[in-house]
């Protein structure tokens, strides 16, 4: 792993340079799209930790995303600074991840998928119907922008333009990538992959499968929460509709189509899925049809996802992304 990571770094820096240059010749609308893609890249990566790293098919990720968004929204309403509300959002949805993962991970495979789906739906119904807290379906309006970061004298970085926010989200995306990369190359990451590829063998080799599944699930929830906070304070308006189970499915599609077991995969997936409508702007409904068909074709001809299919030398994985069945 080590030396491969060193090799890839060249590629990584090239892409990074491209991404830093991008906002300077993008129009406002596309900057906005880029920010949204960035947020979803973080989300997809965090879901990738669950789906790709430990092979658990989770369908309540939008729920954690929503909890993060609402947490930081409500905290800033009670005059917390954004820079405290952001980590708080991560922690709170991390806690939810722990609470939900503990019972849910007792089930396996499709049972786990549907259990998490149920939790996701319930979380969304709560956001929608608990009017006194969340203001119900009309959502929370008028969120504050992140407070400017003072540099020296009078100058400070403010986040009132999409470009600056683009860089803020970019930094967090890099942080997420960094964490994923480090995790994958470590003892923990090896345990993750062991559990994913052959849970029985892993347990016989002394790996506590449940603990590591829960770890991945919780870390995923934390980053989803952070993404939620970033999203909320960019759009300055949130409503339950954004965090429905449909969103969970979109995220899953991003992860799997991009390549669940890679780090680049979910990011490419997010880019692919969110940029696609741009190419069907003339007839959106036909675009949706094409989108559906593209999903089918990609899954048939690129079973490991777009990025995964570029990695040679692996046998086609059997037994399912959710462990041996």
């Amino acid at each position, binding site marked *: 792993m080590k030396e491969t990571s060193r090799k890839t770094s060249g590629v990584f820096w090239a892409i990074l340079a491209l991404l830093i240059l991008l906002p300077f010749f993008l129009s406002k609308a596309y900057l906005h799209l880029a920010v949204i893609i960035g947020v979803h890249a973080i989300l997809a990566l965090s879901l990738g930790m669950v789906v790709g790293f430990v092979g658990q098919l989770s369908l309540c990720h939008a729920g954690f995303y929503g909890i993060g968004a609402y947490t930081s929204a409500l905290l800033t309403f009670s005059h917390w600074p954004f820079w405290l509300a952001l980590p708080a959002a991560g922690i709170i949805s991390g806690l939810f991840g722990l609470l939900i993962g503990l019972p849910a991970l007792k089930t396996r495979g499709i049972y786990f998928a549907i*259990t998490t789906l149920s939790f996701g*739906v319930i979380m969304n119904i709560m956001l929608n119907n608990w009017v006194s807290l969340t203001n119900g379906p009309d959502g929370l309006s008028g969120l504050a922008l992140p407070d400017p970061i003072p540099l020296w004298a009078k100058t400070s970085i403010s986040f009132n333009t999409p470009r600056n926010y683009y860089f803020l989200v970019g930094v967090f995306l890099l942080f997420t990538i960094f964490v994923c990369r480090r995790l994958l190359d470590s003892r923990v990451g090896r345990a993750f992959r062991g559990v994913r590829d052959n849970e029985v063998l892993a347990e016989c080799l002394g790996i506590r499968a449940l603990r590591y599944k829960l770890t991945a699930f919780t870390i995923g929830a934390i980053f989803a929460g952070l993404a939620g906070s970033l999203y909320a304070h960019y759009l300055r308006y949130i409503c339950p509709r954004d965090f429905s189970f449909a969103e969970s499915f979109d995220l899953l*599609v991003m992860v799997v189509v991009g390549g669940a077991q890679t780090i680049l995969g979910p990011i490419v997936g997010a880019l692919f899925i969110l940029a696609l409508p741009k190419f069907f702007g003339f007839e959106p409904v036909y675009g949706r049809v094409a989108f559906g*068909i593209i999903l089918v074709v990609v*899954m048939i001809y690129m079973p490991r996802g777009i990025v995964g299919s570029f990695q040679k030398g692996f046998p086609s994985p059997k037994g399912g*992304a*959710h462990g041996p069945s």
Partner: protein
Amino acid sequence: MEAAILLQQVANGLVIGSIYAMVALGLTLIFGILHIGNFAHGQLYMLGAFATYWLVSLWGWNIWSSMFVAMGLMALLGMVLERIAFRPVRSAPHINGLIVALGLFIALENIAFILWGGDERTLPSPYATKMITLLSISLTIQRLLVFAVSILLIFLLYLFIQKTKMGKAIRAVAQDPEVARLMGIPIHRVSSTVFAVSSALAAAAGAMVGPIFCVFPSMGLIPILKAFVVIVLGGMGSIPGAIFGGFILGVAESLGAGYISSEYKDAFAFAALILVLMVRPTGLFGKE
């Protein structure tokens, strides 16, 4: 009075439950063979309803013959989908199958939207408005028919699975595909048969609810979600599980809405599922 209300609520639940059961049966059969969570199943329900609608409203057929033709058409469509979309991914991770199903779900819904627009159509039926009342339960005849037809179809399916040669083959493949193949069972024939049967069931469900509910492109979403809840509740691949799960869910929802809170009606189904899975991680009838 209270007793009457209770009976009425149970009856409501049973009728809805029979629809869930019909959709869930097909879903669970498919899962048993291909281990795919086939979301597209919901759209076969929708297309079945539309097919019936057009046969009735354009050519003035009666509802029964239209329903049978619709079932036939959907059976064909099901086989086609199995051949072009699902068979290629059967050896891939199951999650790929799920994404394929999602893709088909999106594509089919939007195709229907393009062809017929988004507005609701009511499928005319002679039984839609006639009410009958027995021991203080009042239902439309159509609802009774939904119940009756689903029971009948479930029974026929049971005979098919238990008695026929193909039925035995299906059970064998569900048990262990490898062994089945070694025993010389034509896996591909089996799986396309399963798709045909399940799709026909879904179409029947769609045709039967057409007169009660409306027919529109996005009508497939709620039933398919509930059907997933049902088959997980009953235990993946378990036929009795799907049947009882369907009725249990229907009644639970109806009583939940009737006696606790209709605001959280849809939450009950999912909460119930979670509780059951905490006690039995493989559902009520699932094997450990």
